[in-house]
């Protein structure tokens, strides 16, 4: 199912955990859907004046693909300028991992989205003008989160995470 590269990142995830010191954190996913990803970035100003992702880490609740893509995104982004990091797409993440099974492609978008959100938060905090692509993607992510929250509103019962999830459709047993 998963290729060896994916398994290698799953076995030995790079840059996981929470940075002791970070500039911003991007949070995506939803516990109801079963995947949550937090991406921490530490941005430093280089001598040439560029913003560099000096350090990056993540915390992920999710499947093998979610963990491997988190790891890969962190590898791809680390040491890049913020402007470069913005251009990392989910298909790039999947490709760098040598591909993902079809039902798992969304996990790669989750990881790229988390990076996007972290950078977006950084721009806001720094009060810097937000590039159009970054903002568009941020809006798309926010829309998607809203949709999910609406869909699961019945189960969430005003923020009570202990609420039970009776009544979701389907199942994976065999």
């Amino acid at each position: 199912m998963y290729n060896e590269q994916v398994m290698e990142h799953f076995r030995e995830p790079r840059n996981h955990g929470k940075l002791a010191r970070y500039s911003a954190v991007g949070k995506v996913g939803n516990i109801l859907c079963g995947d949550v990803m937090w991406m921490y970035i530490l941005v430093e100003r280089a001598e040439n004046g560029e913003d560099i992702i000096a350090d990056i880490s993540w915390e992920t609740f999710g499947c093998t693909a979610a963990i491997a893509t988190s790891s890969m995104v962190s590898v791809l982004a680390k040491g890049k300028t913020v402007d470069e990091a913005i251009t990392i797409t989910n298909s790039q993440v999947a490709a760098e991992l040598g591909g993902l099974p079809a039902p798992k492609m969304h996990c790669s978008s989750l990881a790229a989205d988390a990076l996007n959100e972290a950078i977006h938060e950084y721009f806001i905090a720094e009060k810097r003008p937000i590039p159009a692509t970054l903002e568009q993607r941020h809006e798309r992510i926010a829309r998607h989160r809203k949709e999910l929250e609406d869909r699961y509103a019945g189960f969430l019962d005003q923020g009570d995470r202990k609420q039970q999830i009776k009544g979701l459709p389907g199942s994976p047993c065999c």
Partner: protein
Amino acid sequence: MNTRTYLDNAATTPLDPEVFAAMLPYFQRKHGNASSLHEEGRQARKAVEDARRLIAEALSWDPEGIVFTSGATEADNLAIFGLARSRPDRRHIICSAIEHHAILHPCDWLEQQGYRITRIPVDTTGRVNPQSIADAIDDQTLLVSIMAGNNELGILEPIREIGELCRARSVLFHTDAVQAFGRVDLPTESTDLISLSAHKLHGPKGVGALAARPGMRLVPLVHGGGHERGVRSGTENVHGIVGFASACRLMVERRETLVERLSGFRKQLIDGVLRIPGTRLNGDRSGSLPHIANFSFAAIEGESLVMKLDERGIAASTGSACSSPNLEPSHVLQAIGVPIEMAHGSLRLSMGQQTTQADIDTLLRTLPGVVEDLRSISPFKLGDS
């Protein structure tokens, strides 16, 4: 793969060597078609009919009522559709919310055709209350279908009581006994239809049976040469049927010692796994199948848990959404109301006759570290919520 710990016997069991030995002559030497007149055909026919008798004996059933199928999925479908099509006047079916998809999906299909389907909810351990079935029966009710033991939780359903109350109300009662047969006593006298699958009993894949009261009219799913008294056409899978019968016989023979051993292992598993913080048992300690135990772990997701265990040589399964092709979480865990943060982190451990103390020890030695690893990269911490 030399020293794997296989704890996914509810998904499928390794073929028993004795079962394989029983099947062996029917691959090449005795290769006849059971419908043929000649020696080769008569040999095959005898093998099929002997197998039918063996299975009937193991079930305390009339051999005339045993219909061989390609597995329990087909047997479940045959029970539902076969009856629905033979009694089109009755358009109400009752099942539990935690039936296998092989029951739920035929019911969904009939619902689209205008049937009423009552899906009886279960309590937090997964048990159906017989009273709720009694309450749901009306004069339109064609069938009540409640599984004997649940494949995800291991929980046993009160099918004796349910069968008796169905009988008292003159409603047919079907039970999916795929996981329960050979592991607990089945109240066959108060049951009208039973589904079985060989590969869950250390028999071969691709064969199962529906046991029906002899004379009960079932409209076939598969029409053709009129095999299996016209209820299930198609050249008989002779080696599969022979293996199925052999597996049934062995399960019954070995049941007492097997159940005792597995029950002991199950207790060890439950005690050991619950020692890991943030863990919960799904189902119940008692009133359960001896071979299945289901847990949830806070703050981690089941697919990655199964994959980490697999990396360490342990095969297990999960009801997590991420593990399913359509990314939907287990309807069984939903039905028992597992809290959200626990529902995604489920783990099913299931044992077979080949399971050893070493397997249990390996699991209990490996699991805590794996859970900890995954929690260390999770955004949720145990103290949370």
